């Protein structure tokens, strides 16, 4: 059984039918990427998983447990945490406070302190700036903070929504290195990306989303070689 299962999910914004029967699975320890053009429904898929948007139809399960009936904070508690699109850190809280909010659903102070150290090891720059308010960080640092904050929940599945968006190439590389490192350490990741080339390089499997529907599902390697994908998303003719 897959760790995360999404089965035939339909989601709406008012009358807008944003997801038209999306199905996908993520296995333990995998990186699965969801690629697609702007407005395809990638963020909407992540929002329905984390409960911020309730699907009108379909099932979402984490290790066999239903998530659709859960409220967003319970879903975090069950082990799904999200790095929202556009690195939305809490700008007026300090770096450390941001990370502590990330651990909001947990109660063991010792384990939290350990994870805090781990995040600081992963992002030494954040440690230097731990008492600085997050609004004063650069874009790259804020993205690191957003990832660190999501890790503080010690998730079973980490949802990343376009972590490379708007970052300089050198920082995009840095972010993807972090993603690979998390993968090596066994974190399960569902990665949404516009940068399909990069995403397909790190991922095990991928799904291509088009106007709210999955049009392709394959291993990352096959997708990278697929003619349609190359033309549409990798900018290669």
């Amino acid at each position: 059984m897959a760790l995360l299962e999404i089965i035939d999910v339909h989601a709406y914004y008012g009358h807008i039918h944003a997801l038209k029967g999306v199905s996908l699975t993520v296995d333990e320890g995998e990186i699965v990427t969801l690629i697609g053009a702007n407005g395809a429904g990638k963020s909407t898929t992540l929002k329905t998983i984390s409960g911020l948007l309730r699907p009108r139809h379909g099932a979402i399960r984490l290790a066999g447990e239903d998530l659709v009936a859960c409220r967003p904070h319970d879903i975090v508690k069950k082990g799904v945490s999200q790095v929202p699109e556009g690195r939305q850190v809490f700008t007026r809280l300090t770096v450390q406070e941001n990370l502590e909010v990330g651990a909001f659903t947990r109660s063991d102070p010792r384990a939290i302190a350990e994870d805090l150290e781990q995040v600081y090891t992963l992002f030494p720059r954040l440690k230097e700036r731990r008492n600085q308010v997050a609004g004063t960080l650069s874009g790259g640092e804020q993205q690191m903070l957003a990832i660190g904050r999501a890790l503080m929940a010690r998730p079973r599945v980490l949802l990343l929504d376009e972590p490379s968006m708007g970052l300089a190439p050198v920082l995009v590389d840095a972010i993807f290195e972090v993603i690979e490192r998390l993968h090596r350490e066994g974190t399960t990741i569902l990665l949404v990306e516009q940068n399909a080339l990069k995403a397909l390089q790190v991922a095990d499997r991928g799904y291509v989303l088009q106007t709210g529907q999955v049009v392709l599902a394959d291993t990352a390697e096959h997708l990278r070689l697929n003619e349609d994908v190359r033309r549409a998303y990798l900018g290669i003719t």
Partner: protein
Amino acid sequence: MGERFRAALRPAVVVGLVGGVMALLLSLVGMVNAFAGRPIITGVLSMGHTLLFLTALVTGMIAARRVLHASRGAGRPVALPGAALAGLASGFPLAVLVLVGQVVNLRAVLQNANPVLYGLLTFGRDPGAGLPQLVLAGALVGSLGGALTLLPGRVSQAVVAGLGTMLLTGLFAELLQGILWDLGVPAATTRLFMVQKGLTVAGALVTGAAGALVQAVWASQTPKVRRRLDALPPERRRRVNVALAAVGLAIVLWLPQVLGSFLSYVLVLVGLYVLMGLGLNLEVGWAGLLDLGFVAFFAIGAYTLAILTSPETGWLALTFWQALPVAVLVALIAGVILGVPVLGIRGDYLAIATLGFGEIVRLLVGSDWLRPLTGGSQGIAHIPRPVLGNIALIGPQQIYYLVVAGCIIVWFVATRLRNSRLGRAWMAMREDEDVAQAMGINLVQTKLLAYGLGAGFAGVAGAIFAAMIGSVFPHSFQLIISINVLALIIVGGMGSIPGVFVGALFLVAMPELLREFTEYRLFMYGGLLIAMMLLRPQGLWPEPTVRLELAESEEPEVPARVTAATSPGQGD
């Protein structure tokens, strides 16, 4: 050359005229008249004139800065003349008013444009002699303002501190005389410095010099002392802190003995507003939930105490101490009840909804429907005084201790909350509700706790208020209380705990001590809030992080260097 100077001086004239219009406004709303009766230096300077001079002073300061700015350094030699010019210009609108007033009777339209005002503006002479004097005084004060801008920061801070001290001692000379008398200072000594309601010239010089000196010493010594404190081992530093806190507490506890009944009453009011301010600060400053109906919880705390303790209602006739926790609990529950319907409402709509709640509570307690319980518009009287041991806390001098105890407890709770998991959840929610939710924060629970705890704090204030006054009436719980509390946390610094104390002292004690202000209270609030937003948006005593943020944002960012160093494992 001349052309350049003229270009540099143009902004000065504009600023001066704007300042003049301000002065005109202050005169026409009647503030100059109202404050003329309050001397700063007896026989020499009244508060009414001081208002005009302060306007000219600020005008001069702004003008000097504008001139410097407009001419990019070239204006430095004309900055001082520019400030003088601005001060001069600021006198003109007033002069025009007086001249027009000689020919036309403006009183029919502008109630305060009367001979008394003209007399003040001309220093009691005829316009021919008085008006040149007024304009010249403007120029003089304007150039002082300019000098303050041009002088090095330390010097001008000392001068401002000196003038401020002189002004405050002059303003409160009458109260100070009483205090000195109570302290056993011989009247003959006091009379050297203060006569009637103001300072003597000698007194003005001495207080001004003292203020300047204290500021100068403070500015030069504070960094050294701080560095020395920081160098101390933590154990010793803790002891220093405890000692300082003990001294502070001793002074606070000793105050009512010297201040007498009236000033103690003022401090009690300040304390009640601190209690409410800490509660509203929790809702608005931390959780980001705007609440314009905060008076409701103050009222509920007061009425609950009244109903439970007064023999009039014939209910339980509990003692104050038995009823207090119930009053706080009822206020807390009321907070939660208010929270439920407004859970999904954000921003402006929340302001309107909560505003309505405040009014509903006031109308309900005054309604015929609840008359058996709340006494309708008659209210409830004969609320027994709190008894501690076998001392009845009767006057403000005794209630004061109750308020201080309340403030200390609530302050302690607020400080703990600020750094708790819940406190961080509030602040995360304030920043972004959706992201907070995605971090696993239960919005419903977190919001209701903010409303409930904030309301509980106000309930403490309400209960003490009821016990102090001995009766409660619906009209004691007007919208203005909500506005006061909100204004004081804005002025003190949104989200800042010490800011609540500073804001309450500033906005509650000041108007209470300057009775002439009462009529202009809202006018002053408006002016003060606009000035705060322009000059010091972070508040008088902001939270450390806010201070940091504003300081940081003034520095240019260097993202390239900063971020390149961020990437882990970049070397491979």
